């Protein structure tokens, strides 16, 4: 009874040094986040507001999305609507084709990742250049991100050094992060200067003004949109906030939750195309509107992709992003994967000890752990429930609903036949791999009580 996640996690943990580094490094990000949260007296009030504003916005999306599109269009922006990933990619490619694009320079976007846009465009002959340093590293390596904010967190500096020796001709054996970052700066500076089109995701869209807001630390989204003549924004329809007043709540929460900074270095507001240039916004549904009708999981639409849930997750930190089968890992990824394609991504539902820490760090108060609990309840109807687990649960129910049999078992049998039954039921004996089995005490509390061994003597 183990899932793909459990198996991949076991492989990750085999490299104890790497696992431990990954765990502790991400924990430090959690600590930085805590320091920021504790320094803002109104933190919990902010989270509650962020929750409520998003709940309002996504349940009035029909109004806000049109308001946003109208305002953007009035600002001279060309707005496109994409029902799904395929349409998104085609729209982007059409724009690129129209401008005879050879090189597209882009900043990090989980949405273009979701749409598998890069392989699609590369197939069509477009030179797609990721400009976030972490994204560029994994693009060179040909691997997907393992974290949504720190995409290359699983890669050690020596590996980056070696990679850059090959692709950027850096000095042999030099893996100093500053040296390597400078090399990437020089390399990407040239890419920015020679790109035909720049692309960004969107952290927020402001309905009242039509602004697209993009937050980065590196400034890569700004470089990529300040030189090429065309700017394409890829934006999920759930990214809206009503106005700047609402936006102020999220710009206070995002970076504090994500990296433990008071704000990102750049919070850019794109309202109009540059003079003589074009700006396009591609509004993407790709399953989002359907989530609106799902009361158990609608809250995922509040997500601002800060990854605080990953950094605090005791499972994510010790199993790494690649142990999950969906491209977004951690608590939010478990839920988004299930919403996307449950029959394909159900393996991730096991990756949760239900510790609820994710609920508490989430800046928009998504009920992440509760949702995972609920997915587990649905696995059986999907036919994806683990048979052994089901048998064990059924067996437990039988025993526990028949107290006389249960207590007889308790009286007669060794520990193996009673609780904790689920730990030792199967032949694999997963419990026993790293733990000793609990020992049956010889006499249960119930037996002691019945024999009057517990009660005070003058108490009948």
């Amino acid at each position, binding site marked *: *009874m*183990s*899932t793909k996640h459990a198996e991949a*996690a076991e492989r990750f*943990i085999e490299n104890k040094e790497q*696992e431990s580094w990954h*765990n502790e490094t991400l*924990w430090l990000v959690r600590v930085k986040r*805590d320091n920021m949260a504790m320094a803002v*007296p109104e933190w919990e009030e902010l989270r509650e507001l962020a929750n409520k504003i998003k709940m309002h916005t996504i349940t009035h999306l029909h109004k806000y999305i049109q308001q946003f599109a109208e305002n953007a269009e009035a600002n001279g922006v060309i707005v496109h609507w994409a029902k799904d990933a395929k349409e998104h990619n085609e729209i982007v490619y059409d724009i690129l084709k129209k401008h005879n694009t050879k090189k597209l320079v882009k900043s990090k976007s989980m949405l273009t990742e979701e749409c598998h846009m890069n392989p699609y465009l590369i197939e069509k002959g477009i030179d797609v250049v990721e400009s976030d340093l972490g994204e560029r590293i994994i693009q060179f390596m040909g691997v997907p991100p393992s974290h949504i904010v720190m995409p290359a967190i699983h890669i050690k500096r020596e590996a980056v050094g070696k990679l850059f020796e090959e692709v950027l001709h850096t000095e042999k054996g030099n893996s100093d992060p500053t040296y390597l970052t400078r090399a990437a700066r020089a390399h990407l500076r040239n890419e920015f200067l020679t790109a035909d089109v720049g692309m960004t995701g969107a952290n927020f869209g402001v309905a009242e003004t039509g602004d697209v807001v993009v937050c980065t630390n590196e400034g890569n989204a700004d470089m990529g949109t300040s030189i090429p003549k065309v700017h394409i924004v890829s934006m999920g329809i759930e990214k809206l906030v009503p106005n700047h007043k609402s936006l102020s709540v999220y710009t206070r929460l995002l970076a504090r939750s994500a990296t433990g900074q008071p704000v990102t270095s750049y919070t850019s507001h794109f309202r109009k195309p540059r003079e003589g240039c074009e700006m396009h916004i591609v509004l993407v549904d790709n399953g989002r509107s359907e989530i609106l009708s799902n009361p158990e999981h609608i809250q995922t639409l509040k997500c601002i992709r800060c990854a605080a849930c990953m950094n*605090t997750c005791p*499972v994510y930190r*010790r*199993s790494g992003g690649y142990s999950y089968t969906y491209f977004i890992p951690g608590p939010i990824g478990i839920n988004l994967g299930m919403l996307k394609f449950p029959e394909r991504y159900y393996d991730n539902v*096991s990756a949760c*000890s*239900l*510790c*609820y*820490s994710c609920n*508490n760090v989430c800046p928009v108060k998504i009920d992440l752990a509760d949702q995972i*609990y609920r997915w*587990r*309840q*649905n696995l059986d109807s999907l036919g994806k*429930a*683990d048979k052994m*687990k089901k048998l*064990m*649960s*059924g067996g*437990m129910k039988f025993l*526990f*609903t028949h*107290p006389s049999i*249960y207590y007889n078992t*308790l009286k007669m049998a060794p*520990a193996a036949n009673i*609780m*904790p039954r*689920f*730990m030792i039921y199967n032949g694999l004996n*997963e*419990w026993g*791999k*790293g*733990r*000793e*089995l*609990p020992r*049956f*005490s010889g006499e*249960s*509390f*119930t037996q*002691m*009580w*019945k024999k009057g061994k*517990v*009660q005070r003597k003058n108490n009948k």
Partner: protein
Amino acid sequence: MKVGLFIPCYVNAIYPEIGVACYKLLDYLGVEVDYPVNQTCCGQPMANAGFEDEAIPLAKSFEKEFAEYEFVVVPSGSCGSFVKLNYPRLLSKEGRESHTSGKVYDFCEFLHDILKVDKLPAKFPHKVSVHNSCHGVRELHLSSASELNIPRYSKVKDLLSLVEGIEVMEPGKLDECCGFGGMFAVEEQAVSVCIGQDKIKNHMATGAEYITGADSSCLMHMQGIVEREKLPVKFIHVVQILAAGL
């Protein structure tokens, strides 16, 4: 005040001494304690594994067994929070109401909030590291969760401070999970054990002789690892410390 003692299935079988300590301490505090002998399991193991409907018959029988008591008190926060938070919804699936969810208390919570205990005869001249269990912290609010910007408190530490001679510590990563998680412990055994090993390391780094906590299931999981690895640290439930000498 009539209290029904809820002794979770695995505590019943493995740690009956915790139940005995519960009884002794409540009795000492002048509470009328009863133990309904037909109780079994609250249903959490099945529910967390994804079969919560199998917990409904257990919830029904739990409701019946504990109907007559003013309070239901349990030395395992996780089981208590399952009853408290999930029974109303589970029972509503069959058009029933839960009468126990509003009166179930973790043992420490009961002592702290209801009995408001401010004096105990207990002596325990040892250094202990308090294990802040996930469900105790984040569902029952036995202490302030480390993620939240709220005033710091710990009901467990408040109670332990009444014990003479004790030295109370807390581990690094104050309230990180121990990796138990019920069925999670076997389904994700590698991660579960890894989290547990780290947790024990953090507890042991305090120099404590004992790891103590309000949730027996976390203690059981960590004890399994400690015994496998033959580590020099012991386990004791908070109730056993509070009842020491009775």
